[in-house]
């Protein structure tokens, strides 16, 4: 927002006069130019205060726009379609201005480019629902007229234009009243300037804005691949600024503008300017280099399958036996070259090729044998890429043949440690469909880059899968310690466990909420000391606890989990917490147990996401009270620790003072 910034300068015309053309800056002379009352030109600079006293020129025809870009003199476009350079016009303001466009033809939009250091002006006119484009080249003084064909949807009205330019074409983008963006390519060098040519437009983006909004629609091209659109995406929704990637047809980002806009949008120097409510809003936006990974951010499924570009698997690691770092690039280039040769010449079938061909047709059993063979060979230079290609091949076949599911193969491939989620997103998708918890657990353990939505989908399955079906699976129990062992000692240990953590119900002042608890103390002990889930489920949940996540992305997905599952998970976490607090180091037994921080973070996350639901559930009441007390006890522990720290510091001071008394000493030191 720039509303709190003060303007650097402000000028106004006399009452009764109307500014009819936006003021522009002449970059060559650092002057401003504005037109009022259609024909009166005013030129001034920063030092001028009164617009009335500055240079004035009255022209013979009405001006549509003054156009100015850096590096060239401004142009004046008249309403009748004629164009003049500013200098030439000022030399003789009253010169005759010819009429270029026909009667009833109205200029709708215009833009001024520099192409190969030559100015090019384009303007669009409309007459009875037909659109025409004029391109004026200034080096050759050629004006070319094109008729824009609207295609099948003849009666749509074009709401807004924008254009970008590359070497050969001006890409004219138009936002139609049907909410779609169309693109028209206009050649910069006309093939035959004399003939009236027609141009066809092609659909670029569908349903970007709602078809029936009338005001506040605008678009502007940011670079070759990005456009910004102002308007409401759906009929009822608020107005929105959205940036689209046209290369990948994806929504890059969007921002709601609740106070409404006026349908004006500019992009200048990596900033988007727009009117929002009564203020001018500036949003800095920089187009990143358009990449698939960047485009995958939003509306992933809306992607056109045709444009889906599969990234090649690249072997980033130096092949073994390769020496110093600076050789890497050469080495990899050599590999690439060799791979190319393999593809083109196929001197003999290498094992990797053979494997890939096996995948496509053979039976699961056979594939497994082949994969095992290949893995035994191990580190060939293109090991990574072959593994990647193999998994992709397998998954493609899985999708094509629903009965095909080479589970053992996949498990083996995951265990090579070279795969990641982004290399084969389909893998977990298929595993989720098949409810293969074992594979999912393996993925969670191996992949560093699982998106939060997928983590959450895994969690859902882990919580909802029946105990009986869990029995059949063979999940890794590494992270689970057999908690049942310690149950016997529980009664004796209970008191100390609680005290160690500052958790002492006697001291608790919240006696009201305690009452219910105290009724059935026996029950409570049982509840908190026996694991609420079977060990196999615990192992799966531990895999979730170990996975990396970002809170912001995880929270919305956590809301989708049914309340009883949330309570179950919370109970389990609470159980883990109690187990943790049993020993002084606050750790769980076992080889790779969840840490206290992970447990606490997940408790907080679950409560944050589902508090309103959980608080309404009678069966979760006790759990919530327990958690409340847990938090309270933690706070008191921390405050105690802080107190102890202060006491220690005082002791240290006393100690120092004591040492100071021995300021002087005589010691024996043997030197010679």
């Amino acid at each position, binding site marked *: 927002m*720039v509303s*709190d*910034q*003060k303007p*650097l300068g402000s000028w106004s015309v006399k009452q009764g006069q109307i500014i009819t053309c936006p003021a522009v800056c002449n970059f060559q002379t650092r002057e401003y130019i504005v037109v009022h009352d259609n024909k009166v030109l005013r030129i001034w600079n920063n030092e001028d205060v009164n617009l009335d006293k500055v240079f004035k020129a009255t022209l013979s025809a009405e001006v549509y726009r003054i156009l100015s870009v850096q590096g060239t003199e401004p142009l004046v476009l008249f309403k009748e379609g004629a164009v003049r350079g500013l200098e030439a016009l000022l030399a003789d303001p009253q010169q005759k201005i010819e009429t270029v466009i026909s009667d009833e033809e109205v200029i709708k939009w215009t833009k001024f480019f520099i192409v190969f250091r030559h100015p090019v002006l384009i303007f669009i006119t409309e007459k009875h629902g037909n659109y025409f484009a004029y391109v004026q080249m200034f080096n050759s003084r050629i004006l070319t007229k094109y008729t824009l064909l609207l295609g099948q949807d003849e009666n749509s009205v074009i709401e807004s234009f924008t254009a970008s330019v590359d070497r050969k074409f001006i890409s004219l983008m138009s936002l139609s009243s049907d909410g779609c963006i169309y693109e028209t390519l206009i050649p910069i060098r006309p093939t035959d300037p004399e003939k009236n040519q027609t141009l066809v437009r092609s659909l670029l983006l569908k349903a970007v804005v709602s078809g029936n909004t009338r005001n506040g629609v605008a678009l502007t091209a940011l670079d070759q691949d990005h456009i910004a659109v102002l308007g409401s995406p759906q009929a009822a929704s608020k107005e929105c600024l959205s940036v689209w990637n046209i290369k990948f047809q994806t929504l890059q980002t969007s921002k709601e503008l609740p106070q409404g806009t006026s349908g004006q949008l500019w992009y200048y120097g990596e900033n988007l300017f727009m009117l929002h409510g009564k203020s001018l809003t500036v949003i800095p936006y920089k187009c990143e*280099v358009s990449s698939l990974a960047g485009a995958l951010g939003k509306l992933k499924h809306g992607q056109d399958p045709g444009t889906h570009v599969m990234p090649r698997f690249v072997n980033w690691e130096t092949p073994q036996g390769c020496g110093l770092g600076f050789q890497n690039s050469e080495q990899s280039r050599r590999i690439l070259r060799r791979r190319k040769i393999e593809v083109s010449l196929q001197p003999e079938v290498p094992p990797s090729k053979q494997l890939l061909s096996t995948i496509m047709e053979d039976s699961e059993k056979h594939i497994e044998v082949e994969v095992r063979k290949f893995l035994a060979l191990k580190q060939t230079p293109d090991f990574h890429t072959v593994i990647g290609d193999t998994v992709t091949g397998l998954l493609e076949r899985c999708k094509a043949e629903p009965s095909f599911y080479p589970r053992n193969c996949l498990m083996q491939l995951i265990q090579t440690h070279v795969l990641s989620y982004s290399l084969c997103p389909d893998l977990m998708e298929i595993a989720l469909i098949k409810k293969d918890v074992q594979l999912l657990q393996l993925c969670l353990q191996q992949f560093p880059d699982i998106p939060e939505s997928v983590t959450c989908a895994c969690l859902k399955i882990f919580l909802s899968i029946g105990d009986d079906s869990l029995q059949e699976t063979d999940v890794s129990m590494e992270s689970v310690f057999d908690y049942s062992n310690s149950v016997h000692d529980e009664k004796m240990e209970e008191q100390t466990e609680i005290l160690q953590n500052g958790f002492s119900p006697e001291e608790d002042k919240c006696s009201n909420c305690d009452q219910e608890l105290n009724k059935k103390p026996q029950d409570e002990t049982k509840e908190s000391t026996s694991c609420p889930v079977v060990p196999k489920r615990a192992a799966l949940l531990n895999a979730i606890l170990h996975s990396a996540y970002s809170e912001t992305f995880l929270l919305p997905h956590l809301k989708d989990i049914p309340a009883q599952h949330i309570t179950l998970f919370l109970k389990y976490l609470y159980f883990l917490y109690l187990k943790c607090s049993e020993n002084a180091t606050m750790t769980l037994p076992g080889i790779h147990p969840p840490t206290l921080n992970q447990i606490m973070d997940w408790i907080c996350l679950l409560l944050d996401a589902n508090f309103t639901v959980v608080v309404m559930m009678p069966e979760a009441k006790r759990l919530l009270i327990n958690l409340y007390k847990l938090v309270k006890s*933690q*706070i008191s522990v*921390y*405050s105690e*620790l*802080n107190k102890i*720290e202060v006491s220690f510091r005082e002791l240290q*001071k006393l100690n*120092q003072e004591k040492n*100071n008394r*021995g*300021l*002087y*000493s*005589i*010691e*024996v*030191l*043997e*030197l*010679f």
Partner: protein
Amino acid sequence: RSTSGAEPESARARGAGAERGERREGERAAGIRCVAYNNQSNRLAVSRTDGTVEVYNLSANYFQEKFFPGHESRATEALCWAEGQRLFSAGLNGEIMEYDLQALNIKYAVDVFGGPIWSMAVSPSGSQLLVGCEDGSVKLFQITPDKIQFERNFDRQKSRILSLSWHPSGTHVAAGSIDYISVFDVKSGSAIHKMIVDRQHMGVSKRKCIVWGVAFLSDGTVISVDSAGKVQFWDSATGTLVKSHLIANADVQSIAVAEQEDSFVVGTAEGTVFHFQLVPVTSNSSEKQWVRTKPFQHHTHDVRTVAHSPTALISGGTDTHLVIRPLMEKVEVKNYDAALRKITFPHRRLISCSKKRQLLLFQFAHHLELWRLGSTVATGKNGDTLPLSKNADHLLHLKTKGPENIICSCISLCGSWIAYSTVSRFFLYRLNYEHDNISLKRVSKMPPFLRCALQILFSEDSTKLFVASNQGALHIVQLSGGSFKHLHAFQPQSGTVEAMCLLAVSSDGNWLAASGTSAGVHVYNVKQLKLHCTVPAYNFPVTAMAIAPNTNNLVIAHSDQQVFEYSIPDKQYTDWSRTVQKQGFHHLWLQRDTPITHISFHPKRPMHILLHDAYMFCIIDKSLPLPNDKTLLYNPFPPTNESDVVRRRTAHAFKISKIYKPLLFMDLLDERTLVAVERPLDDIIAQLPPPIKKKKFGT
């Protein structure tokens, strides 16, 4: 007794004195307030909260080669170098001062009539000086060859100007005030922009937001640091905020930008220093952005000031440490400059000792303390601490009059004379000892030429007093009974006014050696009152020197850790010194990072030289072979039970002990007694105001 000789007892006065800090007096260690780096001379000026200004020569192993004593009423708030390596400071007394780096005094002080001065900046050309005052005025001064001349005021602001920065072209100036930053046009002196700084701090609105520092870059960006913990980037052309980094929960107090404008450093009240660098957005892209790259935590307290040399980040603050953190990517060879440096202790001697009466004189900023060492009747073996039969006595507490800090002090060997000097006065006292009582009598009527001494020394028989004055002259004064007589003054060679900072006298009283900050060492014949010789000039400043008894060899230690031995009678380096230079010192010896501050000799062991720096003391035995780079330099004193063969094989000329550290002073009292003064860092820290509290548990 071992075959190798006596075992000196060491009287260890733990932390009994140091220049700064003595709890009884409530005299706090003076924290660092400003640092200013001069690229041309590679020197660093440092000012402290007590008004002391020190100059470090970064090319000479960070040696503190000059210092200007502090003054109670002169709290410096700003320090800068102008063209021609002229040093200026400004402070809360409202004056701008220029320092004479040759004569080591203050050239002049100019009142700017704007109330306390909070900030000062030299124009990029180095010819103009801008100060920001309490009353909101910004005043421009022209630097003339011998003074400064007020030129004009800029538009007056409504509150104090805490920071100033020139645009590298010299056309504009950014000024940080309370709650806003102003951009001035230098030509017209008018404020063209006022950029309001957000008071919000972590969502809580603070009362005020103080802009502690600003930096103006050549592309027009103004970087500000403020009390709300923010580092902000402003576009000075439009007066708009471009980017904001919240980096601390407390004040960000200082900023310094590299000359290439590709990196800058900020210091926070939490003791953290952050490095920001201008790095490409993606590799190979020409577009760059400022990224916070490295945090450093070398301080416990507020980092009041930072500087950016081409190869290092320099920071200083309330905790009194000066930290020089090299930027490894800028350091080409692994040498002295590649190591982190933390300078805590002064590079000069503040303690003198009366061997005959076993007294120690400690010099503080505003007082002197005289202590008598304790004694014991017990004996013990190596490493024992003996029970005291008499503890050390605090005999005398001599407080200076006036606001000036003490420059130097000395007690005579016999203990009957004490002399000290401030900038404007020289004091000489005669002490009388009657049993346990001592009486003190000031020698009055000091001659006018004895006004400001940089170094004082008594001859060994206490009959002569040598005074190095700040005018470059060396005075010899005859002492007898309670009176004194001016004998002679060695005037500096014509054309030079370089002050002498170090003095050494031979035990027979015939020779006097004097050294300045850069020129060589001069040796005078005291009997004939004429210059005897000048030791060949060496590139690095002298840190300590002493004349050996009997041989009259002058031992000189330089800041690059070289030690020379020069025979005064022969007017040439001794053979041993030539051998050492030919073979070279051990690389670990050369890599030590504190200078040698004191050299002494054992009266019965002419082959031994005793010297110490802040972290070790060393006995050089000239009769033993020199260590080469393959031998272990720090071999602890060999145990006596080892056979002679082993001892001889492992022994080399350097016997180093690190038992006592930080070591401020060490000297031989007699053949068997060594006195060492330590100053534990914990004691200094304990006297500082508590640092910003950070919670250790629970966040």
